[in-house]
């Protein structure tokens, strides 16, 4: 039974790429390190052997030029997946991603779309410091014309990669290296996780925790712990950052009256601020306590592992925030 087959998160991405490249000759993978597990883990396993160097293209270190080439190929009818082994490297590629790909369909009056995936990997921790670990999904989410997905589970990683490849728009797919080893049942067949739909990971009635990517796992641990203290927490997994599943969030807050937002990025001007504003605008009357956020402090990522522990929030920060909104 395929539904019982377990797969690691990274291999779920790998399977999505295999299946999409087999199904659609216009899909190709391009980026720095696609030949090397050192860069992209085992997400690209056996792709080169199976599909050849014409469709699995390891590149010179030229993020701007290569990303632009992928955008141009998409405009010319291909469906590229361009991978950046670290999100930090994507700053060089902001022009093709934002100025060109995100705007293309609109500024050409719908005459040509850019069906492609910008895939970037977050690399938290490991004393990698400020330029090897940044989570910049909030910046992408700010840009009209881009969709942004952030799977937390292996099932969603496969389903969202397939949905991203099949979407007629540019989609930014953000994963996190620390998730690569997580394993769960993943169907063998091709399936899509709908872009724009979040999911209730755990039902509860006392408080809502909205989380994304790795923070979903921290939120689940926090919810277990809080349950033992008699607090019933609902955990929402956004799965897609943009377009945001507003109804999922608002319905939950209307039920619980309390919300904690756990993001991967910096606190100021990021998606936690966006969700807080959404709740304030549309569910203010349901709130029994102020909205709280668990996010990175406004500080570059440090190298020292001692400082890293202070920098990256975890389940304990979520527990503290939930207790605060519960008045405990």
């Amino acid at each position: 039974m395929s539904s019982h087959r377990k797969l690691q998160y990274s291999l779920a991405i790998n399977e999505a790429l295999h299946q999409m490249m087999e199904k659609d000759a216009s899909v190709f993978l391009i980026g720095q390190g696609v030949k090397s597990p050192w860069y992209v883990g085992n997400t690209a396993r056996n792709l080169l052997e199976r599909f050849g160097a014409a469709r699995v293209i390891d590149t010179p270190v030229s993020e701007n030029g290569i990303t632009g080439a992928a955008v141009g190929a998409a405009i010319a009818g291909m469906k590229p997946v361009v991978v950046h082994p670290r999100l930090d490297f994507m700053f060089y590629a902001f022009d093709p991603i934002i100025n060109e790909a995100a705007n293309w369909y609109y500024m050409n009056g719908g005459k040509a779309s850019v069906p492609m995936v910008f895939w970037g990997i977050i690399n938290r921790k490991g004393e990698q410091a400020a330029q090897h670990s940044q989570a910049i999904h909030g910046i992408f989410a700010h840009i009209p014309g881009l969709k942004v997905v952030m799977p937390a589970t292996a099932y969603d990683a496969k389903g969202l990669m397939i949905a991203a490849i099949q979407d007629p728009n540019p989609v930014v797919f953000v994963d996190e290296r620390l998730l690569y080893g997580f394993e769960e049942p993943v169907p063998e067949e091709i399936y899509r996780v709908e872009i724009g739909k979040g999911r209730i990971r755990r039902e509860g009635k006392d408080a809502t925790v909205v989380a994304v990517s790795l923070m979903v796992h921290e939120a689940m641990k926090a919810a277990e712990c809080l349950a033992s203290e008699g607090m019933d927490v609902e955990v929402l997994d956004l799965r897609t950052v943009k377009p945001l599943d507003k109804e999922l969030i608002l319905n939950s807050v209307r039920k619980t009256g309390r919300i904690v937002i756990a993001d991967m990025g910096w606190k100021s001007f990021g998606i936690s601020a966006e969700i807080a504003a959404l709740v304030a605008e549309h569910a203010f009357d349901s709130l029994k306590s102020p909205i709280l956020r668990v996010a990175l402090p406004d500080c570059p990522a440090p190298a020292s592992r001692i400082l890293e522990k202070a920098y990256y929030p975890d389940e304990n920060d979520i527990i503290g925030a939930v207790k605060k909104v519960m008045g405990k």
Partner: protein
Amino acid sequence: MGYDIELLEHLFRTMLRIRLCEESFVEPILRREVFTPCHLYSGEEAVAVGLSSALSRDDYVFGNHRSHGHFLAKGGSMREMAAEIYCRESGCSRGRGGSMHLIAPDVGMLGSAPIVAGTISLATGAALASSIRKDGRVAVSFFGDGATGEGVLYESLNFAALMKLPVIFACENNLYATHMPIRECRVNLPISRIAEPFGIEIHTVDGNDVLQVHEAGRQAVESCRTGKGPVFMEFMTYRFRGHVGPDDNIQGSHTDIRPKEEIAMWMDKDPIKKFEQYLKENQLLDKDRLQVIKDEVMAEVLEAQAFAKNSPSPGREELTKYVFA
């Protein structure tokens, strides 16, 4: 010689279509009926027309901020372009793009954009698509001398050379990057030499001689189509008007610092006048035939202007219609 008359007529007619269409916007811009920033192509027609005449309909072109000529030369509709310049719903980009975003996918005009050098990598990628599909298409990137200051040009040259992509890097050297003389922007070497370290085939061409452009273009396209990899072409040319807007001294503000003698010298090398003279002297097209073409082109331009001005603007209710496909 030995060009058939159809080609010669096409070259003359298309250059004239671009010139008269561009010039038809001078008054509307001065009257402020046209607001979108127009970077007029007058004076550079031979480049777009000569090179595009060496391409087939399926080949790809990416333009830049000054792409009215590229769009028309590749076969885009004049009335849709005119309507776009008036930002009307009937424009090629439905009034969402304006003068700097011209597209006609049906004829291989894949788009234009004003971020300097921003479309060079896109054209390289269209060539990559062609190379993966093995469909024989060639992609052309039109950019100006100012774009040689951008890093992405060098990234694209390297990648295209490495992958032997069928892309033509077409540099229109009009000697000025907006207001800056090119000698104040870069060390004074021929621009085409930047392609040398990448082992890319280079052509330096008189960009005001449409037959020379066509001939060099044919060779470059052939080279790309037979898998020999990219070609870099530098076209020496000059714009007759300012960087943006219709006047040498932009709308009376005297921002164009080009010397009068230099402008006069290049006006003498007007690519259309030169070609008309050549056609007459060699008795390839007679005066009457040339007059018929001129009349037809003028009628087309007037019709395009009327179509554009009479077209409705986009509706407010459709503001966000094309954010996502």
